[in-house]
């Protein structure tokens, strides 16, 4: 398709540093900022102490194993 070839030529003619980024997604600075905040928010929860009830559930592994034997 000629139309597609034309578009590909146009795309390849535009140096990556000059192409308008607005419709391509978040800017590199925004991506970095988003990643930093995602890690902060994730790290906040991940650093909370793990509730005992979860460890209690894991304690059942031994119980289940004991019953099988």
């Amino acid at each position, binding site marked *: 398709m000629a139309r597609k070839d*034309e*578009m590909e030529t*146009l795309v390849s*003619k*535009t140096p990556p540093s*000059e*192409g*308008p*980024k*607005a419709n391509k*997604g*978040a*800017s590199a*600075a*925004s*991506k970095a*900022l*988003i*990643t930093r*905040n*995602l*890690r*902060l*928010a*994730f*790290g906040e*929860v*991940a*650093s*909370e102490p*793990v*509730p005992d*009830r*979860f*460890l209690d*559930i*894991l304690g*059942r*592994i*031994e119980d*289940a*194993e004991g019953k099988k034997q």
Partner: protein
Amino acid sequence: MSAALATFKADLIELLPSLRAFARSLAHNPAQADDLVQDTLVKALANVDRFEPGTNLRAWLFTILRNHYYSQLRKSKREVEDADGKFAARLSSRPEQDGSVDLEDFKVAFAQLAPDHREVLTLVGASGCSYEEAANICGCAVGTIKSRVNRARKRLADLLGLDEEIDALPVGGRNLEDTANV
């Protein structure tokens, strides 16, 4: 307890903090998130003989958790009500001059994203999953994950008011060659 089972348990305990954080990013509400984790642990233990030792336990657990989350979502539709409530929330401040944003504002904006966007951003952006691992967890193609991450970032940047000076550029400021062919 067998050595394999002891390893499984130790690895599981090590993964609990990130499992909770993943749950929190999906559920918003801490109590609902921990219920998700609890159900995930119960399911994991019930299916422990289906886990192949040496394979990716994190992906296995995250998959159980997300599948459970989505099946609950389909049942309850509670998420729709949650989302409506969240949309009333407003950011308390604009981005700073240096482009940084308040973490609480970030969380408010993040909470407004669709579940599939929160999910990929958490997997790829926060918990350090590879695209392949995220694709495995979400049961879709790697390309789907990549484009979803891009859309999610764009949406989040819009919600946070980032990149606005770029959007506000007059059309004349663009390369004419790019617009002539449209």
